[in-house]
């Protein structure tokens, strides 16, 4: 017993070092898995407020770019005003009554909320964006986030007034996307190297791909509406051993200068996940 105490006393510094290392690594591993860490809620509010002060000043330097992006987005939206709505399948409806049923009735599927960016980093391996809209303003976990130019990320942590968004520039980020031309689907990920480029994998070699082609979010994506810009093809990587292309994409969103984002609520999400879960159960 005495020896144990002597040992602990002798190596107390080393043991403390090990304990502190374990604390730090545990934080890191847990956060990478669940995006929750001790004191993150309190710390998020404090760092969010400080970051917002900085961003308020910094935003003045990017006003021109923001305006340009907004004008372009408005023009684009005017061209597709009806696309946020989907029509129910009316071909199966069995109508006995002679009263006319409005077959053009549309159900809203996506709802948009704007949010200013409070903090934004792009130089890490796992990048996060803090936005000034939280649970008090109706944000929930796993909502999609886009900018005027294209996709930005996914909400991973919600505080009362601030939320943390996992940026597309994150090693764990993944989203289903399609080629605009042929509709072939694949998944988008980031390799952690350059914040200007994403990768799209699993595109069959039968697809016609060309440099400069547009890549959009697909219809099966569970957080984004279809047809949101992801990027344009910058390089086609032809892996000889597989039947799939890997495409290097130039991101549509300029991640370093985002000032405002749009958070997207999928109103039919619960129904979708419930239906999918029931299938898995059987």
């Amino acid at each position, binding site marked *: 017993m005495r020896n144990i105490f002597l040992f602990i006393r002798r190596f*107390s*510094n*080393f043991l*403390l*070092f090990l304990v*502190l*290392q374990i*604390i*730090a*690594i*545990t*934080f*890191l*591993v847990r*956060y990478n898995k669940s995006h929750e*860490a*001790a*004191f*993150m809620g309190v*710390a*998020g509010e*404090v*760092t969010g407020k*400080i*970051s917002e002060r*900085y961003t308020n000043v*910094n935003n003045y330097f990017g006003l021109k770019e923001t305006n340009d992006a907004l004008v372009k987005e408005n023009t684009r939206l005017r061209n597709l005003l009806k696309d946020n709505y989907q029509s129910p399948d009316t071909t199966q409806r069995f109508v006995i009554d002679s009263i006319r049923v409005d077959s053009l009735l549309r159900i809203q599927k996506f709802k948009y909320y704007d949010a200013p960016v409070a*903090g934004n*980093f*792009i*130089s*890490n*391996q*796992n990048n*996060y964006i*803090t936005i000034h809209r939280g649970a008090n303003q109706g944000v929930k976990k796993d909502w999609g986030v886009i900018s005027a130019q294209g996709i930005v990320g996914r909400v991973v942590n919600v505080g009362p007034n601030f939320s*943390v968004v996992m940026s597309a520039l994150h090693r764990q980020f993944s989203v289903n996307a399609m080629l605009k031309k042929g509709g072939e689907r694949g998944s988008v990920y980031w390799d*952690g*190297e*350059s*914040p200007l480029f994403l990768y799209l994998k699993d595109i069959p070699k039968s697809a016609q791909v060309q440099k400069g082609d547009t890549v959009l979010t697909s219809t099966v994506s569970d957080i984004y509406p279809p047809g949101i810009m992801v990027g344009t093809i910058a390089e086609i990587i032809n892996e000889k051993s597989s039947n799939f292309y890997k495409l290097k994409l130039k991101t549509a969103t300029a991640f*370093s200068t985002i000032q405002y984002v749009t958070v997207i609520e999928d109103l039919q999400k619960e129904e979708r996940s419930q239906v999918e879960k029931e299938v898995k159960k059987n």
Partner: protein
Amino acid sequence: MSPLLKNIVRFALFILLQVFVLHQVRPLHQFVVPYLYFLYILWLPFNMKRGMLMFVSLLFGLTLDYFLKTPGLHAAPCVLIAYIRPFLVNQLISQEGAEQNYASPSVKSMGWAPYATLVVITTVLHHSYLVFLEWMQFDNFWFFAGKVLATSAVSLLLIFITELLFFRKEKFRTNTA
């Protein structure tokens, strides 16, 4: 200003500088992330107990992590260099009893060459561990090596400039005073 107050002010300044200046710089190259914040740990006084040194470093690293939303990623390397620092200082210090005569490691208290060695070793250790944690899977060794080297080079340049700009006048303390 008392040493405690000075170090608290430094704590805040280093964090703010790292988060709002150096991390806002557009990436120059995929290898380069300008880090300077860990200089705070090198500037902590000689007479701090090792346990206290490591504890302050953990707190310092975590504070940065909460800003960058990467809890633990910077805290672990900070604790490592805080643990290593006393070893290195003991090995490198040339003047007899300099730890007692001066307050904290600097060019003046340790001399140019030993202080530079201390800075280089801690910088490389810090970055190696940090990049190692970021890239737990070693799928690309050259990326790892390149990033450590490039980031260390930029950090050393920044530290050099900081030391020139903010030359710390260390007072020589004697036992008789």
